């Protein structure tokens, strides 16, 4: 499943990284504690968060995440966008809250046999 597939299914906005949308997504991780993401998220996963600070890009690059999805209509700082473009980390956005987005994403991933257990 590609980032583009997820964007289409969930009707997400693309805030940066339009040239990276054919990248594969292996799963997803939801957390608003950066240290938790550094410890637990897996490479190739989509990270769902409400943070907009530039540090999210460094964390995503460190963990080689597929993309960041900012919920609740959060607008990233300009610096976040600039760093993300440099690090090739796509940033997606939605005005929806994390719970419905995660629920729908889970269903899509389940249908694509991407959810274990």
């Amino acid at each position: 499943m590609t980032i583009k597939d997820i964007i289409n299914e969930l009707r997400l906005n693309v805030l940066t990284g339009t040239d990276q949308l054919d990248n594969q997504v292996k799963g997803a991780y939801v957390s608003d504690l950066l240290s938790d993401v550094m410890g637990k998220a897996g490479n190739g996963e989509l990270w769902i968060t409400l943070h907009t600070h530039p540090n999210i890009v460094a964390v995503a690059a460190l963990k080689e995440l597929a993309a960041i999805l900012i919920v609740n209509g959060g607008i990233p700082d300009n610096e976040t966008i600039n760093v993300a473009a440099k690090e090739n980390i796509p940033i997606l956005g939605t005005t929806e809250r994390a719970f419905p987005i995660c629920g729908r994403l889970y269903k899509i991933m389940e249908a694509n046999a991407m959810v274990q257990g």
Partner: protein
Amino acid sequence: MHVHTVLSPCGGLDMSPSKIIDHAVREKIDILAITDHNSTKHCGLAQELGKRKGITVLAGAELNTMEEIHCLAIFENIDKAGIFQQFIDRNLNVVNNKPDLFGYQVIVDEDEQILAEEDRLLVASLKVSVHETEKMVHDLGGIFIPAHINRPYNSIYSQLGFLPSELKADALEISRNANYEMFIREHPELSGYKLITNSDAHHGEQIGRNTTDYYLKQPEFEEIAMALKDINGRKVKTI
């Protein structure tokens, strides 16, 4: 009370202890605290260099608790900071730093020669709560100050949404951002605390950009501690 060195990944390469002391002399600062992210390892050198120029340097750190709340811890002397360093070492979540993403974390000597590189990412969080951290700082006789409480990330308000009344903060640090006065108005519970501001300097020219006046007999840790408690005529000019 809040100065980073080149040991902090976000600290500028111009923030060697010797440069910091030079800036402090220029800014006519009598007393400052070195507070790197989750490390006290540059405090000893800064203290020594400060002494030569008549500047008191307090040994501290800016901690990142498990809730990702930044808090300043400031100690009476380098021995107590050393004991606290062991607490940090036991509790830091170990993530390897990637300098191109987060910045270099180096320990230097007085001639700015690199002595060691810190491999553990110092902006990672500790495995202990803000309450446990506060208790450990106070058990060592230190000063505990939640940092930049009005910042939308890594502050006690951003992470918990409120200020726990049982948390024993010796002061609260306010960032002098555009909205700080409104923040204070919107949080009447702050009236019970000493509100101070600091430079949170990460680059040389930021040293002394925001300061707090303390009325002390001498620029010493004990005097600052008294001022924060309004003891013996010592005072803090709060925000």
